[in-house]
């Protein structure tokens, strides 16, 4: 009888311990719950999602290069407006809409492979455009009359890689970057603005993430442990255009409203396009989480919803994110 009681007590202890460890493990995860899907796997809605942006009403703006279109959806996924016109006149695209960024009352969209940025109203009516100093890689932090742009420098001048532009195309501030490559093809820099008007910049082919404050001063810089310093390359010609990276290190970067930096791992991650490295602003790695599906981009809106681009870039998924409380301690105000 005593042996039986001991057995029950031991079993109870094991159960309690397992429960505690299980709970701890669950706390380490970022829980994702899918709340919306726009598009389908056949490409009926989107031929190829290029980029997305979300406004304060949770409307979703999507670029599609093949359809030559920018589409605006309500938070329920209903199409509200659409725009896209080929041409060389004001507000027209030469090769199609690519990266998109929003300000309080405007939309900025880059033209694929060119230095042109088209400006539109929130109802997708074109209002103007301007040119940067080189083919645009990414745009971010669209505030009032200014927008940050990363470009591929044709001159090889690293000070041109990242800059703030006014709406008439004037460079109002050059933003210094760390460890710039002399090879133009390795200068791809992904951008993301944060809610404090700061900027996060991450190289696509180099292991370096930079954090800037609202004055575009570098406040921290870090790398993802476990990933190589630089992507391997093929040399196919002489000069700064003759090197082509074979693989991508970092695919996208996003910021959670409480100042957590989400970095989407590329080809060197254990799960390419699914591993997300979560850092605080000092560069401390808090966690690596695994997305349910591969994505080519990450977007986190002001309310903390995560948006991804899945299934051969043919659909957008929106997830509710639940973060554990321990992240709150890491937030830099």
């Amino acid at each position, binding site marked *: 009888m005593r042996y039986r009681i001991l057995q029950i007590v031991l079993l109870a202890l094991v159960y309690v311990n397992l429960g505690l460890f299980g709970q701890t493990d669950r706390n380490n995860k970022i829980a994702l719950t899918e709340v919306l899907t726009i598009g389908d796997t*056949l490409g009926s809605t989107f031929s190829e999602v290029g980029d997305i942006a979300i406004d304060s009403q949770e409307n979703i703006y999507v670029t599609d290069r*093949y359809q030559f279109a920018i589409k605006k959806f309500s938070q329920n996924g209903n199409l509200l407006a659409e725009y896209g016109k080929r041409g060389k006149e004001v507000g027209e695209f030469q*090769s199609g809409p690519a990266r998109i960024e929003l300000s309080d009352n405007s939309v900025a969209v880059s033209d694929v492979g060119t230095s042109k940025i088209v400006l539109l109203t929130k109802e997708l009516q074109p209002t103007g455009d301007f040119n940067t100093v080189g083919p645009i890689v990414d745009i971010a932090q669209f505030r009032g009359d200014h927008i940050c742009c990363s470009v591929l420098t044709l001159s090889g001048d690293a000070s041109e890689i990242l800059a703030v532009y006014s709406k008439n195309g004037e460079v109002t501030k050059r933003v210094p970057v760390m460890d710039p490559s002399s090879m*133009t093809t390795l200068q791809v820099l992904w951008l993301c603005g944060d809610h404090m008007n700061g900027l996060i910049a991450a190289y696509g082919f180099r292991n370096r993430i930079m954090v800037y404050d609202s004055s575009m001063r570098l406040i921290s810089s870090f790398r993802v442990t476990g990933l190589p310093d630089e992507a391997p390359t093929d040399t196919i010609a002489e000069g700064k255009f003759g090197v082509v990276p074979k693989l*991508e290190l970092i695919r996208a970067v996003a910021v959670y409203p409480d100042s957590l930096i989400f970095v989407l791992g590329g080809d060197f991650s254990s799960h390419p396009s699914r591993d997300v490295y979560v850092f605080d602003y000092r560069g401390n790695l808090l966690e690596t989480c695994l997305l349910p599906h591969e994505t080519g981009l990450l977007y986190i809106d002001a309310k903390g919803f995560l948006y991804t681009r899945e299934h051969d870039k043919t659909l957008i998924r929106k997830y509710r994110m639940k973060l554990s409380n321990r992240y709150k301690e890491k937030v830099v105000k």
Partner: protein
Amino acid sequence: MKGTSRFFLAIFLVLICFGTENGCHKTQEETNRRDESESKLSGRFFLSIWMDSTGGSGSKAFLAIVIYFEDLSCVTCLNNLLDLSDSLQSNHENVMLLVARTQDTYVLQRRRMEAWCWANHLRFPLFLVSPDSLKQNLVGRTSVALLDSSGDVELFESFPLSAVLSKYIIRKLRE
């Protein structure tokens, strides 16, 4: 080729076209090489697709526009191709588009290219073709092949085309 690899290639092409003043313009040496290879290019390849797929008689001159989509990251080439296509709308029955297959599924690539053609007002018959068969027939870049009424290749050139060449093609198709 993975999507990212295509992106890298696209970047390279953009830079070549952007970075060098005459990046997309062929040198005399290239033209000479083209002239040599032109003689080896067989019209049968294009003609068989044209006749099998469209039921075309083959008794008129026609134009095959071959598209490697990643080449169109070169904006000069893209604009050149679209400008030529705009000029050919009234002769759409004599033009076909051959698009090199990518790693996308057939259905998805077809949908993408149909959407792209629709958005850019290209109303020509569209065919997806294996890049291997294109390369076997010496077509490794986005190009045009003009076939005369007897099915021989009269002209074969990569984009971007010169204005003179574009006008020549338009004139031949209207004859």
